[in-house]
């Protein structure tokens, strides 16, 4: 029983961390523009595609002599940096072309534009890879990431799992320094609260908005690389489901709140893993045979039901601000 719970917590934490990283991109952009950047799922997937390409080119082909080729961690670092640059830049371009011209339009208009960008990016990825005869992208994950490093309570912790936790911890630490303890971070928060007054203080709000898209895109890119190593079969639509989950995590935590996105991601990851593992309880409590009917495939349905229930009781999200705010 303890092993069962530990397993759920570990796996939930890992998936949840991934959701959290992606959710940050949604929540930060929402914070400054009150816009749901639906294209974020594809920005994230672009990170995965970057990882696919980097590992395809730089890693030894599967079955090659062991010990040949570049060090897998070095390849990983190259993939991370490339994804940060590509996805950060992509997100900035998206804002410039698709959202900025609509800045003063009613809120619904840029939302439609966001959905459009999301669909366009799916097609672009399909085209780029399709030209090379690929639709399914099987990421060439080095053994270092798939190997089990240690086992806690019957749960195998792999190289990618440790990598994921370390990278996420470093990024969250850096993000906190940047947003809460730097001049630029203060300016971003000021723009998020009141763009006009921030302008009166001499802050160029367009630059801060671009910077927010850069940070969100970079986080999405890192998330995409980690995702590609953990779930190494991608296609042009692989961004959608994790994107929706991460967006839900952001809402669950309180959209616009950075700690909320992290908490929401973790909670969603754990709930999901719990529901996905329910049928496993049958082996521990044979009398609960009905649990066997709860197949792991239903975990998404369950997770969203849980999400709705939480939001009914806490509509502004776990760490969200109340809708009414003293002016």
């Amino acid at each position, binding site marked *: 029983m303890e092993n069962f719970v530990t397993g759920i917590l570990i796996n939930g934490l890992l998936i949840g961390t991934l959701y959290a990283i992606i959710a940050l991109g949604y929540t930060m952009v929402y914070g400054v523009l009150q816009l749901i950047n639906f294209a974020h799922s594809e920005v994230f997937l672009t990170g995965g595609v970057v990882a696919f390409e980097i590992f395809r080119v730089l890693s030894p082909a599967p079955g090659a002599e062991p010990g040949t080729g570049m060090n897998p961690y070095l390849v990983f670092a190259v993939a991370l940096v490339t994804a940060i640059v590509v996805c950060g830049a992509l997100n900035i371009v998206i804002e410039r072309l698709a959202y900025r011209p609509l800045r003063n339009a009613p809120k619904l208009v840029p939302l439609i534009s966001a959905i459009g960008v999301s669909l366009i990016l799916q097609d672009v990825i399909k085209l780029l890879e399709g030209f090379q005869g690929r639709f399914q992208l099987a990421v060439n994950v080095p053994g270092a990431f798939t190997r089990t490093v240690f086992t806690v309570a019957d749960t195998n912790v792999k190289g990618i799992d440790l990598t994921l936790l370390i990278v996420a911890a470093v990024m969250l630490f850096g993000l906190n320094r940047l947003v809460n303890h730097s001049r630029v971070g203060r300016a971003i928060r000021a723009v998020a609260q009141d763009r006009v007054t*921030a302008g*009166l203080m001499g802050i160029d709000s367009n630059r801060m908005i671009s910077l927010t898209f850069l940070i969100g895109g970079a986080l999405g890119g890192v998330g995409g690389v980690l995702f590609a190593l953990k779930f190494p079969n991608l296609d042009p639509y692989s961004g959608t489901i994790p994107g929706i989950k991460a967006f839900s995590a952001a809402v669950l935590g309180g959209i616009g709140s950075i700690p909320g996105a992290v908490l929401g991601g973790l909670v969603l990851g754990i709930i999901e893993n719990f529901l996905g593992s329910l049928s496993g309880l049958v082996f521990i409590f044979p009398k609960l045979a009905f649990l066997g009917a709860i197949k792991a495939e239903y975990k998404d349905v369950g997770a969203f039901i849980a999400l709705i229930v939480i939001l009914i009781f806490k509509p502004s999200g776990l760490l969200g601000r109340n809708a009414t*705010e003293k002016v």
Partner: protein
Amino acid sequence: MLELTDIHTYYGHIHALKGVTLHVMQGEIIALIGGNGAGKTTTLRTISGMQKPRMGTLHYLGQDIAGVRPDTIMQRGMSHVPEGRRIFGQLTVRENLEIGAYTVSDKATIESRIQEGFEFFPRLKEREKQLGGTLSGGEQQMLAIARALMVAPKLLLLDEPSMGLSPLFVETIFDIVQRLNRERGTTILLVEQNASMALGIAQRAYVLQTGEIRLQGPASEIASNESVRKAYLGED
């Protein structure tokens, strides 16, 4: 130091300022009074660069500043305390002050100005780490003024600093405005609904009505003007 000549400002088709001409000299406190919708806020927004005038000239420290961006104007020593205070509610008191000094790059200067602000407004020091949104209305007004002082302005534009404050707080705010003027030589353009108080501390005043200057002159003369007494000082 500041000179507006025949300024016209529009919001789309709405003609908010219809040829405003006024000037402010170094070291003065000037009151700008008028009823709701007269164009007082628009005048200040035009001066600080938030709204571009369509016609007329706008000179500040000898330079034409019509259409210049607010941050550039601010760097030339002008600061604007906007209507409704507009402090950053989710930032702490200290962070609000730091944002006020966004265009100041020297850290030591920023820190010494924060301390000066705390000397002027000891209440803010006690609430340094509190979120701006949790301050009382009067404290928020103090914060808005302290934030504007972070650039050590030569000219301070104040838009209805007494709005919504209890008489005691209004007194405090007006005292501070006078002290700023006396001790630091800050020139002040003060927009007020509270006309009697404003006329009490100003040297000269302008009366704005539906986008036009209706009256101007020494504050004492304006205060004793028959129609001003009726319209803005609540007498009949």
